[in-house]
C-alpha cells in the first residue's frame, strides 16, 4: 500500500483481535472493510464488548449496514472526523485498562485518533492500525505551524502562509502530520510543477 520509506513514516498492519476486556474501533470510509475482514477471524461474542465509531465520508455509506450487523455494544456514525473526536475523547477519558484500540481507514483518521489515544495515556505501539482508502496527507508547515488537511500533491501549498512545501515522509505522531518544508527557499523563483501523488 505504501512504498518503502524512512523510519519515521508510520507502518500500518492488518487488524487482528487482541486479548482485552473492551474493544474500541475508529474507522472512516474504506476502513470499515478492514473491520469487516477482521470480524471474520474474531472469536464468537467478540463484538459484545465493542464500540465502533465510524465516519463514512463520501465513499463509506454502503458499509454502515454491514458494520451494524456486527452487533457491537455501541455503534456511532458521525458526519466527520472532527465531529467524532469529542466522543472518542470522552470514551477514552472514562475507559479502564483492558481496552484495546483498533484504527482503520485514511492516514488522517488514524493519526488523529491515535493522537487522542496517546493524550489519554495509551502508548502508540499497542494500538492496532490498518490503512485503507485515500493516501491524502495532513501536513504541518514547519514555518508557520499551520496544518493543511487532505494534501494530495507534491509539492503542496500551505493553506495558512502560502509557502510552497516539499511534503516529506518524516511524520510526527504527536502532531498527527507529515512535515512540509519550503521547497524553493534557496531560489524563490523556482516554482516546481505540483503533481498529484497522494491519492
Amino acid at each position, binding site marked *: 500500500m505504501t512504498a518503502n520509506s524512512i523510519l519515521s513514516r508510520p507502518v500500518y498492519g492488518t487488524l487482528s483481535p487482541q486479548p*482485552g*476486556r473492551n474493544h474500541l474501533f475508529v474507522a472512516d470510509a474504506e476502513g470499515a472493510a478492514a473491520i469487516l475482514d477482521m470480524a471474520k477471524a474474531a472469536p464468537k461474542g467478540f463484538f459484545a464488548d465493542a464500540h465502533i465509531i465510524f465516519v463514512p465520508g463520501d465513499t463509506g455509506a454502503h458499509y454502515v449496514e454491514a458494520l451494524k450487523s456486527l452487533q457491537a455494544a455501541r455503534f456511532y456514525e458521525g458526519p466527520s472526523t472532527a465531529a467524532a473526536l469529542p466522543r472518542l475523547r470522552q470514551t477514552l477519558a472514562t475507559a*479502564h*485498562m483492558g481496552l484495546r484500540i483498533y484504527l482503520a481507514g485514511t492516514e488522517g483518521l488514524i493519526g488523529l485518533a491515535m493522537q487522542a489515544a496517546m493524550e489519554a*495515556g*495509551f502508548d502508540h505501539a499497542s494500538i492496532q492500525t490498518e490503512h485503507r482508502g485515500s493516501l491524502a496527507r495532513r501536513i504541518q508547515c514547519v514555518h508557520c505551524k499551520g496544518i493543511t488537511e487532505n494534501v494530495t500533491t507534491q509539492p503542496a501549498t500551505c493553506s495558512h502562509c502560502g509557502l510552497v512545501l516539499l511534503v516529506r515522509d518524516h511524520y510526527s505522531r504527536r502532531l498527527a502530520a507529515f512535515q512540509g518544508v519550503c521547497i524553493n527557499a534557496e531560489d524563490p523563483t523556482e516554482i516546481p510543477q505540483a503533481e498529484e501523488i497522494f491519492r
Partner: protein
Amino acid sequence: MSAGTSKIDVTVTDVVTVNELVKRFHFRRADGQLLPTFSGGAHIVVEMRDDDRTRLNPYSLMSSPLDTRDYTISVRRDDTGRGGSLFMHQRVKPGMGMVISSPVNLFSLDLRARKHLMIAGGIGITPFMAQTSQLSGDGSNFELHYTCRTEALGTYADVLRARYGRRIHLYRDDQGERLPLEQLLASQPLGTHLYICGPAGMIDWVRRTAAEAGWPDDTVHFEHFAAPQPGKPFDVTLALSGKQIHVGEQQSLLEAIEAAGIDPPYLCRGGVCGQCETKVISYDGKFLHNDHWLSEEEHRSGCKIMPCVSRFDGKSLVLER
C-alpha cells in the same frame, strides 16, 4: 568501551534486624561526602570479600532517593543459596568498610503513567520503598499491593501503612488472604502502569493475567533478578585469554572468570541487563540457562551464555573471553 559502573568506598553505619529473615544495612561514603543521587528502582552491586573469594550481589536501594546521606538495602537470608545473604547476615557489622557500585536503574518508573500500580511479593518490596518515596514526593498517584507469608514477614508493611495509609494493601497467606488480581487489573484507569517485583512464579502469574486482560506489554514492568544458583562444578576454557578455569559449586561462571583476572562488563549480575553476554565457541554438554536476557531461540542455539547466572553440565565448554 566497556560498560559498568564506578565503585564507591562505604562504611556500614548500621545493621538492623527487621524480622526473623530480613536484615537492613545502612551505608555512608567513607570520605563523608554525599552518595550519588538515584532514581526509584535502582540497585547497587555489593562486593562481599569472604576470605579468599569475592561475591558480587545486586540489591535494590530502598532509602528515599531524596536523601543521599546514606543508602539502605534489605537482605533476606537464604539458607540454601550460595552464601551471599549469609555473609551479609553473619559477617557484616557496623563500622566495617565495604565497596559498592554506583546505582544503576533497570526497573525505572514510567513517569508518563497516570497511575502506578505496584505488586510486591516478600522481599520484592524493597525497590518499591524507594519508588513510593519518590512518587509521594511529587504527588503522583500510586497504589501498592503486597503479598507476604505472615504479618511478621510483611517486611516494612507497618512503615508503608504509616506513610501512605489506604494506598497500601497487604495480603497475608496464613490468614487466607489472596490478592484479587483479575478484579484489580479490571478496575484501573486508562494510562495505569503495572510494576511487579517478587518471586519468579508471582511475576509470571501477574504478567500472564495482565496480558490476558488486555494490558499492553509497554505498561507492564518487572524486576526479575535471578540470584545465581549453586550447582555442579564445571570446567571452562577461555579462548581469548588462553585460560582454563574451574567453576566451583558455590561460584557463578562470571565470578570464576573474574577470579581468573578477566573483567567482563556487567550491570545487574542477575541475568537481565545483557552486559556480560558471552559467545560460545564450542561445547559438548548441556547449558543450564537461568537468564531473562537471551531469547529462547538463543538459548537453544548454544551460541551464547550469560555467565552471571547460567551454568553448564558436560564434557567441555569453550568461551570467547
